[in-house]
Structure formats: C-alpha cells, structure tokens
C-alpha cells in the first residue's frame, strides 16, 4: 500500500476488517445529484475496504461497517474508493452517512490522494461518540470524489459492528486512552 500513502500517513497500512457483502452501488446512476456535477465528467468508482494482504475489496450486500474508536474517543468508520481511472491523481471527498434512527452525518476530506486508481483511506466521523448506540444499526454510506474536471459518486449499505473499538495501525492497536492529549 506504499503507493497509497500520503506523506507517511500512519493509517495507510492498518488492518481493515470490513466484512464484505453485495449491496455496494457503483456510481454512474442517472439520479446522481450533488451540486456542480453537470460541469464535470462522471466516472465510475467502487467503495470498499483494503488490506495489505487482500488488497481492495468492494463492499457488498450486508456489509459490516466496523466502528472504530481512537484518539480522544472519536468514533469513525473508514473506506477506500477504487476506480478504473488510473490517472486520477487526487480529489476532494464528500461523505454522507445515514444511520438508522439518527440524523444524517456528513463530512469532507480534501486532497485525498489516488495511486493507480485506489484512494487513500477515507474517514467518516460520527457526530456522537456513543459507540453502543450505533452498534448494530443499519447505515447507508455515500461518497463523492471530485477534482476540477471529474467526479464519481458511490454508495454502500451495511450494518455497523464493533469488533474492537481500537484503531489498528500496523502491529499495535491505538485505543483512545493511548493517544495522548
């Protein structure tokens, strides 16, 4: 995954534990809105997980979206975007997630680097840190990536699971209480 690292980002080699299913929805559907897409060309992309061992694996139906807690208790899920547009260098990511019974969560991650069509890790933060509230709930996730001329929008659905609240970065897990001030 060295090619997907941005300046030594330490999450780039972390173990990702998404269980995969089949409901991921590749971009290109006619109802994609999202602002100024009309001025840009759309390309297709997929949303999934990544491991050093297995590489990129698209989310499927009944995907298990792993809840992760790290650094001062912030709660998040992560994902990767893959595209056949191998020359796509970098883009701004917008993320939206609707958790069953909760408000829409939305976030941005500017300057997400792509190497050979695979993004760096994209993080979607929850607004609350109440892990057990989210566990077991369904979630619909949408990610839009764009640069000045191109964009893709991709969605996935799954269930939020909590296998281990700590973030894994290489060999040593990072738990909230370990992460310093």
């Amino acid at each position: 995954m060295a090619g997907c690292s941005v300046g030594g980002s330490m999450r780039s080699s972390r173990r990702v534990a998404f269980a995969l299913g089949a409901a991921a929805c590749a971009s290109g559907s006619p109802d994609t809105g999202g602002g100024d897409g009309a001025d840009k060309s759309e390309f297709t992309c997929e949303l999934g997980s990544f491991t050093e061992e297995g590489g990129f694996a698209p989310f499927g139906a009944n995907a298990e979206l792993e809840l992760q807690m790290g650094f001062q208790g912030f709660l998040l899920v992560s994902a990767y975007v893959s595209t056949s547009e191998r020359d796509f260098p970098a883009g701004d990511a917008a993320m939206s997630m609707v958790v069953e019974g909760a408000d829409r969560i939305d976030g941005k991650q500017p300057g997400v680097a792509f190497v050979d069509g695979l993004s760096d890790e994209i993080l979607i933060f929850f607004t609350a840190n109440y892990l057990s509230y989210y566990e077991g709930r369904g979630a619909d996730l949408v990610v839009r990536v764009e640069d000045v001329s191109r964009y893709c929008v991709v969605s996935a659905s799954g269930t939020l699971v909590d296998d281990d609240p700590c973030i894994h970065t290489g060999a040593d897990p990072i738990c909230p209480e370990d992460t310093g001030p």
Partner: protein
Amino acid sequence: MKPSQLGLGCGVAGGLLMTLGIGCTPDWTAASLTPYANPFPKDDPQWALQPHRSKPQEVITQGDRAWVSLPGTSDVPDDRVAVIDLADGSVIDRVEVGSNPQGLVLSPDGRSVLVLNRFSNWMSVVDSESNVEVDRIPTDFYATEAVFSPGGSTLWVTNRWLDQVRIWEFDADGRATEVGGVKVGVNPRDLAMSPDGRFVAVANLTGLTVSIIDTESRDLVQTVDLRAPPNGLAFVGEWLVVPTLSASSNHLPFAGPDTDGDGQPGDGTPNSNFQDSQNEIAVIDSETGTVVHRYTSDTICCKDFRDIDPADAALYGELLPPADTWIVGGALPEQVVADGDGAWVTYSGSNQFQRFDVDVATGALTARKVFDTSGHNPHGIAVTDDGRVVIAHRLGETLGVYEADGTVDANIVVGDVSDGDFPATDAEIGELYNFVTSKFSVDGDQVCASCHREQGNINKVFGMPLSAYGGQNSRMTMAARGAADTRPWFFEGAMDQTNFRPVINEFARVENFCCEDYTLFPDGAPADCASNPPPECAEEPNAYTPDGITAVRGSALAHPRPTSSLTREAFYLERAQAVIGRTESFGDGVYAEDLLTGARSPIPLDLDGVTKSLGVFLLQNTALLPNPNDPDDPTALRGRALFESTTSNCVSCHPAPGFAVSTDVNPAGVAVRMDPVVTPNYSDVGMNLDLVSVGFQSIFPMVEQDTCEALCGEAACAEDPAACDDVRNLRINATPLRGIWDRAPRMYHDGRAQGLREAICTPGHPALHPGERGFNERNGVPDTNGGTSHLSPAEIDDLMAYILTL
C-alpha cells in the same frame, strides 16, 4: 510637534462651534482605511449573505444619556455612535463619525464627546446636545481609546498601529495640539488615569503588559508583565484593577520551557492543555508596578476530568492558586469600570458581569454575586450617576441597563437587527461560539477569544494539545484571521473548516460524559445508557488525573461530573437551546448534503455542528485589520522588488493574494507542505517538540510526518521512541503573510523570533539590532526561509517595509 486643529471649514458640515478642536490644518485630508478583500468566494456552497451588524462596543454616560460606539467589524466597519436616553430607553440618534469608532470620552465641560475612529485619521468631536460631529481632530490611524487629565488640559490616546500613547494639549480656548507620544507595549488599547492625575496606565492587549506613565515627566516608569492579555483596566484609588487571564502556558509543572522566567523548566501550574487557561483579575500597585493580588476562576477545580485537585500533592496540586483567590465568576474578564470603592467587570465569554469591592488599604478584592447579561458578549461598561450599570452587548447589538442587584431595567437595541436578531446565520452561530465559548465548555472557563484576542494572536507560546510531547512543546498562538487565505488549517495543514473538532474537543472532552466515557466503559456503555443510566454514571470519577489525560476512579479526591448530561451531544444541544434558542443550524452554510440528490438539511448544533459553524464564521470574515502602511512608499516598493526577486524567492512560498500556499491557489487542489524551513524545536535531550501525536495522525490522514520506524527501524524505536527525532519532520504549509503588520511580535511556529527582523535575518546578519538574533537557518544552513544573507541592512529594512504592507 504637530498642530492638529481642525474646524468646520475642513469639511464637516454644520454644527456648533465646539469647546474643543477649534481651528484647521490646511494640509490635512480626511481619510479612512479600506478593509481587506475576502477571497472566500460567493459561489462557495458554504457562503451566505451575512446581516449587517454594528457591534456596540464602548459606552459612556452623562446623567440620563449614554453614548455607545458602533464600530462594526473590520470587514464591514460601521461609522456611528448611538445616543440613548436612559430615562425612557429610546435611541435618540445615531451620529455619523469616522470609520470603526471605538473609544469614547466626555470632554471635561461635558459639552462634547470625543470619538476615536480606528480606521479613520481623525477623532470626532460630537456636540453632546445636538448629536452632530462638529469637528475633527487629525490623528494617525488606529487611535483607539482616550482619557483626559483631571483638569482636562491633556488628552492621552492609545494608538495600536504605533504602539504609543499620543498626547494632546488643550489651551484655554480649547485648541488642541499634538505634542508627542510615549512608546508603550504591543497593541495598546484601554487606558486609565489615576484619580490624583499622577499616572496613566495603559493595557497592551496582545503584548501582555501594562505600561505606567508618569504624567508629569511623561516617562514610562513601569512595565508590568502579566504574561496574559490585560483586557481592560481601571483605577480604584491607587489600585489598578486589571481583568486578564492566567499567566500559565499549558506546560507541565516541571517540564517544558521556562515560560515564567524563574530559571526552572515548566510554568509551575499543574493543570494541562486548555484546562490551564483561567480567567483572572490582577490588582497592581500603581506606585511600584507590583502585582499585589491575582485572582482566578471560581471553577478552577474541579469540573473537567483533567482538573487537578489542590489536595493532590502527587500531582503538584499545591501549585494551584490558593482557594481564597478563586473568586472570578465568569469567563474572559473584558472591561472594568470603577464604582466608588469597587469595580464592575464584564465577562464577554460567558455573558455575565460581577462587582468586586476593593479594600482601599490593601487592594484586596471581595467578590459579589455574578449576574447574567441580557445580551451576548458584554463588552464596554459604565455606571450612571444613580448607580445603574450599563453594558454594551457587542454581539447582541443591545445596551443593557441593570440595577446594582442585577435586575434588568432595559435591553435597548442600539445596533442593527434589521436582518434579524443575532445569531441569524450559521456563520453568526460560529461567531457566537468563538466569543462566548464558555457556555459550551464543561467548566465554563475557556473561550476561543481568550487567546485569539480580536481574532489575532497574543505574544505568547503555549503547550498545545495534539502534540507528540504534550505539555512540553511550544506553539505560537495562531491568528484566527484570513482563514480563507490558507486552507487546510491548524497544525500546518492537517485540518480544514469542517473537521477541526479535535481543537473544539478541548472545551468539552468526551470523558466528561458518562455514556461516552471510554475510560469508564472501554468496550462501550450499555446501549440504553442515555435513557437508563447505569449505576456507574452516579459515581464521581472526575477531576483527578495522574497524567492530565485519563480519569481515575475510586479516589478520595473524586469530584462530581461537570454536568448532568450523559452524552456530549445532549450537553451541546441543551446549551445551544439555552444560549442560541435553537438546536439546529440554519442550513445556510452548515448543512448535511444528500450526495445522491443534492438536498441539504440543517444539522444539530452538537460538537460537529458548532465546529462547522465556527469554520464558516472564520471563512466569512477575514477579521484582518485594514492596513495603514502605504504600499506605494518608496521603501516598500524597493522591498517588493526584493520579495519577488529570484535571489530571495520569498514569493515562491508566499504568493499573492493570500501570501501563502493554499488549496485554493494551488492548481492541483491539494495542500503543499514542506519540511520545516527553520531548525525544528528540540528539547534539551533531543526530542523534536514539533511532532504531533500518534493518535492525532491516526485520525487525520492529511498529517504528513515521518515515522520513527521508517527512518530508524522498529528495534531502535521500540527502545527509544525519540530515536530518530533529529531527522524526523512534520511537514507543514506556509504561513500566510497577509495582515502580518498587526500580529504579535513573536514569529515562527514556536515563537522563537521576536519580530519580523529576527524571522527574516540569518544568524549574525548585520541588519540585526543589538540583542537580536537571526533565525533564518536550518541546522546551521542559512537562508532556508528565503535568501536574505546577501541583503544589506537597508535592503532588510525595505523588505520588512513591504511585508508590513501586505
């Protein structure tokens, strides 16, 4: 000496011949400064049209009449003074004066009100009967506040641009002549005259000192270093009462830099990170310049889980201020007015005010009850002849009139609410949060604006959270200005306007809320915790932390949780309802977007919603003070040529328009970061104090920092995590230079350079003044922050002159 008389013939129409300022200076032309342009584009989806606001700031009274300055903002200045009839609560008039009026002072005969116009080159003389500007007395730009000598023959005026107190003398006919000035500290704002007329005291807001001037000799006789901003000052007898903040700097008690100058490392305060920032009032003996008392927050212990109990000897609890000094009842003590043997203080960060009685023999303060104001962000304060207290609510756009028992007599709209009561937009929600943060902090003490005074920085370095060596590192306070000039922000490019939640997190850490407290429930609280709290939530785990990071339970020193809220979201929403009157954003700049349909909807004003609102506020307003330096001055023009030359190459990293590299001006749309251009900040034992923490990196992929393992191997790093600190780098983005003319002198990320000259000069450069050091080098290699070693001292002056025009 500069004659400065100006009369009706100099362009002011109508009005009475006034006691003050009769005459005219023929070669003088009225001028006002132009605000900086804001590059935040109108087609940005987060941009929204903002209401016009007048920002009532200072207030004075005479009988039943009050005058309130309406400066507006630095981006959209107002130019009026409101005149209020306190008997019936009506606004009699709004007098047009100069741009960005701030200080007000009544002439000794009561016939005129002098208005200090910061962005105009004159002070206005307003007839106190007709409410018309009848005269203009020329000044330099940034004349800010003024005070008369007891007899009225001398006027002392602070000037933020010149860092001086300028002096005018009035003859028997009221003719004013500017006779000179006294150099004081950085950014002088408020000033006060001792009752006997012997001293003028000046509060140097971002310079962190109080200057005391002998009025007879006109010499600076005392400089009192508070190591915190003097936000205002007033004499009560011989005692100078100064609302300020804590002198500590978030460093550990016995580690980190010697910020208090006692020859020992650390600042001697046991609390860590933002918890170390407290609200204080200092009492200074004006004769000796000695701080005889210093009082601190009444909630210094123990609400936030990181607060240290004074009984905890293992954690240096004895180093906390004595409990009998915990009497300051609000956040961000701002302005003060004397009232007999006492003084009233406004708390701009918590919408409160409080009276203190002053022991005339010792200067000791006795606190009285804290009252809530009827409007947001109380600033200027005055006392009427009949003992009522009047307070200008800067964000609320109102003037509050209060009885001495806190009863609200009236809340009079003196500013502009024609586009709706404040806050009316998401950016205004963010503005409210910026200036009244304490309402959303668990212990009610911390405020964004405490360190970002007027959204600028203060001349002080702090130990910052998020760093690899917390409590030992040092970071210069950042100016919260020109936010659209450089994105991403914070820690030199790790965060943007939507996701800087780890910073805001400091005000209400999740560990304070039972159902989200991972130190209590490492595997998560029960799913029904918020509706059916388990017994653990009744425990008292907080306010006792061995490392300033984690809570400890079962201690005899445990304290109650700071609020009854079981989750942080519930806490924020409860506070938002109470303070703002709503729990959702307006949706004009802060919203959730359905990426499939493009539909947008408001979001809750929880930590995320408030963070994003603050981000929009910072983008919508540059908050850069208009620049008074002349870009067409020949010196500056020569400096510009040097700045843009290939030999200095300044322009490569500091290109116009923001004079920084941001995602907005970079065609690739990504942040450009580079290795440090000056020697990193190393500890005595070689730790690189600039590095950020592992945890922080784990959730911010935009951070670019070398890992120890990559450079030295896992074995070496397992033995010593700092093994490679001498070669590890945090890659950072360029500092924006726009508006640098008004920043506090310290420069570079750790504040090592004491001014622009030290920042741009190489070590030993002949342009350095005695006692100055040049820091333009990295590890002994000069010119790493631009080529300047070949420049002559005169060329360095030219280069500096240009940079100060940006």
